[in-house]
């Protein structure tokens, strides 16, 4: 195994020989093998179009929503193949936060947090729901800001608040892993800082995989970092090591701003 790929013991996720093609042979992810560390933030970096989102979405099988997708390889969550269970079950264990905040506009803040349960037709007691909403909103630091307007639609919230609401919505299932695809790229610096602080707090209980274009963000908050280029995982290392001492010239080129 290449020394450019970090080895991890007792990983929460292990991806092996994963290749994904849109259509017959337009490979967006090429033979990626990597393990993901538990209770840590793993950043995925790389130039636009290198396959970051595709890789991330493969982890909760969201990429299967696209037509004509071809996937080879294996992903294991806590040692069990993610292909062994239904996507509905899998996605309760692996949550996702998107680039643009996307709370459901037809639902109240309360309903948004509990949306995963409602969508799935789970009939929870009122007390159970209240508990889930309260703890999820507390976890993202939003409870104080919205506790008087839980039954209002969330459209008056700022972008940053909406994004935290979306994080709370993903946390409601207490997932093992949370996938985030450029979660701060649509936000202002202040809201970005708040989300970053939040992620660092959340990693105590959750594993976070974060796609980001923002190198300083990766440097600030991630523990490990992957660098992808043209669908390949070029380098995967502790973030500090990668930023100070990249092993691959392409990583170095990217980190020093030669391309990206």
């Amino acid at each position, binding site marked *: 195994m290449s020394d450019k790929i970090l080895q991890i013991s007792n990983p929460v996720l292990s991806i092996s020989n994963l290749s994904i093609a849109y259509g017959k042979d337009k490979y967006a992810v090429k033979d990626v093998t990597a393990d993901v560390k538990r209770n840590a933030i793993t950043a995925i970096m790389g130039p636009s179009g290198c396959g970051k989102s595709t890789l991330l979405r493969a982890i909760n099988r969201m990429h299967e*929503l696209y037509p004509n997708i071809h996937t080879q390889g294996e992903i294991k969550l806590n040692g069990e193949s993610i292909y062994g269970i239904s996507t509905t079950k899998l996605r*309760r264990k692996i949550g996702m936060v998107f680039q643009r905040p*996307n709370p459901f*506009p*037809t639902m109240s803040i309360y309903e948004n947090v509990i949306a*995963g349960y409602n969508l799935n037709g789970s009939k929870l007691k009122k007390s159970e729901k209240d508990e889930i909403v309260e703890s999820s909103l507390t976890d993202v630091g939003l409870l104080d800001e919205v506790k008087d307007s839980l039954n209002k639609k969330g459209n008056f919230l700022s972008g940053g608040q909406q994004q935290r609401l*979306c994080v709370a*919505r993903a946390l409601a299932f207490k997932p093992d892993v949370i996938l985030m695809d450029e979660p701060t790229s649509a936000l202002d610096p202040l809201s970005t800082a708040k989300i970053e602080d939040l992620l660092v707090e959340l990693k105590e209980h959750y594993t976070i995989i974060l796609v980001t274009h923002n190198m300083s963000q990766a440097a600030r908050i991630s523990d490990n970092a992957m660098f992808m280029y043209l669908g390949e995982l070029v380098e995967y290392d502790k973030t500090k090591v990668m930023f100070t001492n990249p092993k691959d010239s392409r990583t170095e080129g990217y980190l020093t701003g030669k391309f990206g």
Partner: protein
Amino acid sequence: MASEKIIKNLLKASSVIILLIFAGMAYSMIRGAIPAFKEFGLFGFIFSTDWNPTEGKESYGALPFIAGTVITSLLALIICFPLAFSTSLFIAEYFRKTKIATILSTLVDLLAGVPSIVYGLWGFYTIRPLIAELGYSGQGYGIFTSGLILAIMIIPYATSISNEIISMVPNELKEAAYSLGATRMEVIFSVILPNARSGLVAGYILALGRALGETMAVTMLIGNANIIPTGLFSPGNTMASVIANQFGEADGLKLSSLIAIGLLLFAVTAIVNSIGKIIIRKYA
């Protein structure tokens, strides 16, 4: 520039034609309807169930036709909804942007191109005998047969708007729901439906507007009985169909009554269509 001014005024003057048409329509129909309203009173006419052309004992009322119109149109809407909604989901969600969706939507568009009288013929020779087989209505004429054909006729109007509305639901909302483990059906009912609701409502209201005024197919299938329908398979008449099949021999008070029914139909469809358009403009 002088020429610009002249042209602008000319354009404006031409638009007055629309006002004139409306004013003229209202004036002519009201004037034509006045003898009937005078004889029977406005409410007397609307709420009477009489339809007696015997000279000397002439008496006309619109209630059976209003009832027939409302019942057939609502029935059409009820039958149309599952069909049109499924078709829209097929075209704008399940098979979005695929060849088969294009084929389906072309075929649905063709439905709009079939003349009303051809629907009437097909209904008469194909559907009516099937309904007669059921044994509820001797020859298969009646409310249900008309409602069924009307439902088919309004499908293209209901689907064309729903297709657009459904495909406008933002992808990121659907993805959010999928990422929470929702099945496609759950996404449809919890994300697509609530987000598309007002557009869908507007679409079905406009389709209703179509059904209210459809004439030939209904005339050929409803059984032309001037009574309030007594059941799903009862014969009846709608406002549009009574005009079509009583007009030939009409003059005097009867003609005035038919014009009065036309006036009511005009008012009802104008209101229904305006509501539909307002909803579309507001939300979609």
